């Protein structure tokens, strides 16, 4: 018996009872559709998250105060002095850029418009470390730093809110916490996403921020951003920074009062979360495929009973057990495969829909259907059909020809 002939016959049998076949594969359709859509959305979300983490800069390390693993009394704050020490090329040869910063929520206003946004007090090294480009104007300079100048760089979203435009705002004076600040530049839009939307920020000189807006004791800073020489030197930069800070903070061994995250740590955390999500969705998909498979088994059992005489006839003219087995397995596998293919289309439609809704609501989510997911769904639905078709097919193959021919 050729497989091709079997497939044609199975198709014929499936198509001869369209309503029943359709209802039978509904479970598989919904299961596969859900998997495809979820995977597409999950992949899209992962890309968005990892993309926004990568957008922060390259080969970055984040030095923060305190410890995540241990409770410490009185962790010493990070200071500008710490940042300068890390910037020493002899003590930390793997480091190419250091950008300490302080951050807080501030109220910005212009001509009656006002809104709350994130204010960052930064140094002149910030744009190099964070990959900041300006749409117009210029960045904060040493002169601004020394003079504690009241100048500000606006994120494009902030400019949009205050001025209704993102260009031609340099030279305007806005109010931050009631104090006049001159706009000296506007950041290039990066596509806002995530918890720290880089487009919805105002950058001011750190010295100005410390004294006038986000008051901090002495030279304390919230975060020190450090850029390593290359991806390979991130680990050694981590070691070097830790060594410098241990000496400066005079902490006992094993009781660091600071924490260093690398960009890779964030990426791994994000991937970890999306992986858990994927496993969870996979579980749900597995259950729905199981239910779909049982539906197929049920209908195949009915079909075997209905076609008992046909099976008897086939056996009478010389069909062996494996011929009958193959016939019914082909049918259940094909049924399930068709369900899987419809499910893939359904999933594609769903993820397009979610993408359209996300686009309409300005969310930064682009569902992506990977070839892997499609292949997996195809393979898996066929396997489900084969597995759940096994028992009905065996029943058919084991029928006694005499009994089967006599069956009414």
């Amino acid at each position: 018996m050729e497989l091709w002939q079997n497939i044609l016959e199975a198709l014929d049998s499936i198509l001869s009872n369209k309503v029943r076949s359709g209802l039978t594969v509904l479970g598989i359709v919904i299961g596969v559709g859900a998997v495809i859509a979820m995977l597409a959305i999950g992949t899209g979300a992962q890309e968005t998250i990892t993309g926004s983490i990568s957008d922060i800069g390259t080969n970055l390390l984040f030095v923060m105060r305190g410890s995540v693993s241990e409770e410490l009394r009185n962790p010493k704050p990070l200071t500008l002095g710490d940042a300068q020490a890390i910037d020493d090329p002899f003590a930390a040869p793997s480091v190419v850029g250091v950008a300490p910063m302080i951050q807080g929520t501030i109220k910005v206003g212009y001509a009656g418009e006002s809104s709350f946004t994130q204010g960052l007090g930064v140094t002149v090294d910030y744009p190099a470390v964070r990959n900041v480009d300006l749409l117009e104007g210029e960045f904060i300079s040493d002169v601004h730093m020394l003079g504690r100048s009241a100048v500000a760089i606006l994120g494009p979203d902030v400019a949009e809110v205050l001025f209704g435009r993102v260009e031609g705002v340099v030279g305007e004076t806005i109010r931050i916490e009631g104090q006049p600040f001159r706009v000296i530049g506007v950041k290039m839009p990066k596509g806002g996403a995530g918890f720290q939307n880089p487009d919805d920020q105002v950058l001011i000189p750190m010295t100005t921020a410390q004294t006038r807006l986000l008051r901090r004791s002495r030279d304390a800073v919230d975060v020190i951003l450090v850029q390593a020489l290359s991806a390979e030197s991130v680990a050694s930069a981590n070691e070097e920074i830790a060594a410098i800070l241990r000496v400066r903070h005079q902490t006992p061994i094993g009781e660091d009062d600071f924490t260093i995250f690398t960009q890779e740590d964030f990426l791994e955390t994000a991937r970890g979360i999306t992986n858990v999500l994927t496993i969870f969705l996979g579980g749900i998909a597995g259950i729905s495929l199981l239910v779909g498979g049982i539906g197929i088994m049920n209908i195949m059992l009915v079909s075997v009973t209905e076609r008992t005489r046909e099976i008897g006839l086939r056996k009478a003219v010389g069909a062996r057990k494996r011929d009958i087995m193959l016939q019914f397995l082909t049918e259940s596998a094909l049924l399930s495969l068709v369900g899987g293919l419809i499910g893939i289309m359904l999933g594609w439609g769903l993820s397009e829909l979610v993408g359209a809704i996300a686009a309409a609501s300005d969310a930064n989510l682009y569902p992506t259907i990977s070839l892997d997911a499609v292949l997996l769904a195809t393979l898996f639905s066929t396997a489900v059909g084969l597995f759940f078709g096994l028992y009905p097919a065996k029943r058919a193959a084991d029928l006694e020809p005499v009994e089967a021919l006599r069956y009414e």
Partner: protein
Amino acid sequence: MSEWVIEAEDLIKIYLMGEVEVHALRGVSLRIAPGEVISIMGPSGSGKSTLMNIIGCLDRPTDGTYHLNGQETSDLSDDQLAEIRNRMVGFVFQTFNLLGRQTALANVELPMRYAGVTNGRRKRAIEALKAVGLGDRIRHRPNELSGGEQQRVAIARALVNNPAIILADEPTGNLDSKSGEEVMNILLGLNEKYETTLVFVTHDPEIAAITQRVIMLKDGRVEG
């Protein structure tokens, strides 16, 4: 090669119907020579269906030996029996038993598919259909054919693998007398042309009258 196409020795068949043993055959012996045309008759419950099933290798005897074309069959597996049926036996049933969704051609091709014939399969099927006078009906499905035509398709299917015997179980039972006569003529014509052994299982005395020999069964034994 035996001189008998069918050689049955002391066939006994006992069924278990629930708790009760049913003795369908109580020692049937018969020999049929190649090219013979015989009919097996008998009232209901006489065991003629059981005998036909054993002759057609659809079933095994409880005891006794059965040789088909010289081949001992009682210790063969299910799949080996399937092969014997495929190569040596053609079945013609009262209810035709065609595959309803398949064309006449596909129905006739079916035994060759199970035999693994690929070369010239279509051609042989068309020839078989021409032999039963349905050369112009090969693309029709059973529901587009009359009862007599359907039975002729079944005959084409039975003869397509050149079997040693054709077993016909009430072949005219569901047909009007004219189609019945046509079907009988075709079967007898095959016997004349190819020397195919014909075994009819029937109630119909008219069929019995045509055949060369009649085996009467009663209560699981051959009478007379």
